């Protein structure tokens, strides 16, 4: 089922929680709605589900306007942030709930529930109650309940937020499996960019109720269209530069007196000479003075497990570098307070 959100806005009091959000999600794809807390992604999800009515705009399923339809008539499944399992019903009853609510016959429901329990690996737990399950098991019950009625649209509201890393991996695997097998159109809300990138076909970044970026995940990640998206997607370092020339696939820029070529963003329509180069800490590495694109003073150093986190004060701003492996830690320690260079992977920079 195709999902289209068109010009949806929603305000609470004087605050616009969602402001003119528009996107289209083709059938069978997963869209990750990414953004910081309070950016409007959960509200957008609730508008799609019908739990919240928009002030303006439309929601369309396969081109049909469902904005005025109550949630129960939209044929969707949802995994809530706090799971919202029915505490007084067993696992089996929770999973069967959407079927029973829609009047599906007992025999059909039984078969379906068995299928779903198998898919989400809950066999043997049918008669347990939610409070008797582990966090991961509860999450799987929530997923099972969301898909049991063959819903055309699956909504997931921060499903991994409360899980530890081991469980996150386990549950995300279940989600991927479910999506793969059912090919159900899915909207996945999260504030965790690595989760969003791993889980999605399409990526949307939201800030302050507005859609800042939307597109195929690799493209949005590699070439975010705005500085705010780029920062949120990890490109937290920036350096000023001067544009020297624009080629077909490259832009020549001058940084710190040196001329380098950087990948031209696909949406590039840059005018003027002054620009800003954004890049991710993992694409920056501390090197000896005289090497690298820019120089600065090494002012901070932390051991980060597999990587070293270094902070270099340049003539412009502080730059965080995570490109050095932990083997370089002791060598870098001796350079603390001294002038160093920064090597940047120019292919992965983002120019604004």
């Amino acid at each position, binding site marked *: 089922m195709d999902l289209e959100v068109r010009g949806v806005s929603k305000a609470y009091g004087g605050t616009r929680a969602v402001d003119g959000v528009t996107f289209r999600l083709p059938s069978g794809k997963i869209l990750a709605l990414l953004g910081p807390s309070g950016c409007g992604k959960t509200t957008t999800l609730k508008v799609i*589900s*019908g*739990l919240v009515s928009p002030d303006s705009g439309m929601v369309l399923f396969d081109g049909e306007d469902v904005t*005025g339809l*109550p*949630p*129960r008539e939209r044929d*969707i*499944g*949802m995994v*809530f*942030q*706090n*799971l*919202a*399992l*029915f*505490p*007084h019903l067993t696992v089996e009853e929770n999973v069967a*709930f*959407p079927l*029973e*609510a*829609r009047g599906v016959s007992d025999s059909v429901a039984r078969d379906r529930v068995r299928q779903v329990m198998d898919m989400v690996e809950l066999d043997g737990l049918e008669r347990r109650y939610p409070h008797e399950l582990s966090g991961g098991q509860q999450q799987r019950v929530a997923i099972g*309940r969301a898909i049991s*009625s063959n819903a055309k649209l699956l909504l997931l509201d921060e499903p991994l937020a409360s899980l530890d890393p081991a469980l996150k991996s386990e549950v995300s695997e279940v989600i991927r499996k479910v999506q793969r097998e059912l090919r159900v159109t899915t909207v996945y809300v999260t504030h965790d960019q690595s989760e969003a990138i791993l889980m999605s076909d399409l990526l949307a970044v939201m800030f302050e109720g507005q859609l800042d970026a939307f597109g195929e995940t690799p493209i949005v990640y590699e070439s975010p269209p705005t500085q705010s998206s780029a920062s949120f997607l990890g490109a937290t370092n920036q350096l000023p530069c001067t544009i020297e020339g624009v080629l077909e696939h490259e832009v020549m820029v001058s940084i710190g007196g040196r001329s380098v070529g950087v990948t031209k963003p696909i949406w590039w329509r840059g005018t003027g000479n002054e620009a800003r180069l954004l890049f991710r800490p993992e694409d920056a590495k501390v090197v000896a003075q005289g090497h690298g694109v820019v120089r600065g003073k090494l002012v901070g150093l932390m051991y980060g497990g597999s990587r070293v986190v270094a902070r270099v004060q340049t003539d412009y701003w502080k730059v965080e570098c995570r490109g050095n492996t932990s083997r370089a830690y002791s060598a870098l320690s001796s350079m603390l307070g001294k002038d160093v260079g920064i090597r940047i992977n120019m292919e992965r920079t983002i120019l604004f």
Partner: protein
Amino acid sequence: MAKGDKGGLVLALSYLPLMAFFTFFYALPILSILFSTDATQLVSLLGDPYIIRLTVDTTVQAIASTVPSIMLAIPLAYFLSRYAFRGANLLRYLLLTPFFVPAFAVTEGIILMLGERGILNQILAALLRIDPPVLDVLYSMVAVVIAHVFYYLPLAVLILEQGFSSVDRELVDASEVSGASWFLTLKVAYLNRMIPFVTASSLLVFAFSFITYSTPILIGGKFTTLEVEIYSTRARPVSSSLALFQLMFTFLLSLAILALREKLYVKDASSTRGRMPKTPVLTTSGKVLLGYAIVLVAIELLPVYLVLAQSISSSTVVLFPTALSLDNLIRLFGTEFGFGIGFIDVILQSFSIATVVALFSVFASVLIVWQGSKREDVRKLMTALLSFPLSISRSSLALGMMLCYGFGFLRLYGSWTLIAAGHIAIIVPLITRVMEASWTRISPEVRDAAELFGASGIFRLLKVELPLIAPAIVASFLLAFSSSISEFTFSNFFSTLNLMTLPVSAAVLIDLRRLDLAAALNGLVIVVVMAAEAATSLVSEEAIRVV
């Protein structure tokens, strides 16, 4: 049907249970007696020095009742919120007993406590080796204030306990770790949070004390209140004007209390961070507070205990009955009430009416709360309208019902349905609070999930919401049942030759000058009510906490 029409119908249906209930049980009966109110008379009353003095006296008494209730309640509330121990719920139940047993029991017990030859004077006289009386407080405003503290201190404790429980633990820890004195910690961590709860409990005790009339009549001696004046002038137009004045005053006060409580309750329910964890009662301060709690609860129970002791004893005013006698109780079962019914009939009538009342009240409350849960405006209206019972004298409401339905268009006089209607009128507002408190604890996401997964409103109600509040439903039933058993005003009004409840049959025995049998019967009523309340406390903490 057009969408707009359907929406309008749904809206109307949302309001229907509440408005139907309010109209039938309150509006029509009250209108039938209040229409005779004279505006000019009302104005002249407001300038009458006697009425002004009565109002001032009543207000002073209400303040005097409130202050000690709150001061005594604070340490106990803090203790219950802070310390974990087995029997906490039992303590709360025992504490609430004076509130649940019939009012006459507490008043009678206070007479036995405070009289010239009461327990207190006997103990003081023995300690000081002088002849009693040592204290002469019965039949005065002091006695009324003491009675009110007995009645309302438990309510204050429960409200304040909620406040103490919601104090941010991290603030307390931060203050203590910084080396702050207990006084400074009190100011920084507790004061802001507690002020609304102290205000709410104070206003509640004040309002109840203000509209009192049975306590001043029975033990106030020459002290009198505004409600007594209304009662004294019943069936005269001036009474309606006074009643209207008091109704407006106390209704506005009740709204203020409830508006404040509305704010508090929502905050409390949604606040999950910083709830004070409970400490085992092992510290010195914990033990001291436990001792205080036990002493206070024992004192609270004393009036009820004295009444019970007297009902099975052949002597009067004793702390420990020595000559136990169940003769009167046994004789009750052989008593013909002179109206063609025996005691067994009275018991069956009482229990049957109480069962029907409890079931209907639970049903009505579920309907009302259900609609209130769907629409915020209905919920607010529900809160406002169901505060009426706090402001209306029961005898006025009973009179209105008699005129409206007893002899009015329904002609129900002589039928048990009229008694049941009276009971329902005062019980539904009480149990609606219990249900609502439980209902709001259902996670909104669980409700959203039910709706999203295709559940219609009814399906969601039956399959999700009702099962989740099942303990509150059972507790409400028990609360309604025991309230109906012990209710007197409406039962007395509507009883007939063949139809009476247990408290009314006690009054009949008094009319027949059989005080011994009446005392035994009252003891039995107290035991039944306390048993029902004990069951309630076991089923649901909500019912104990909600006022």
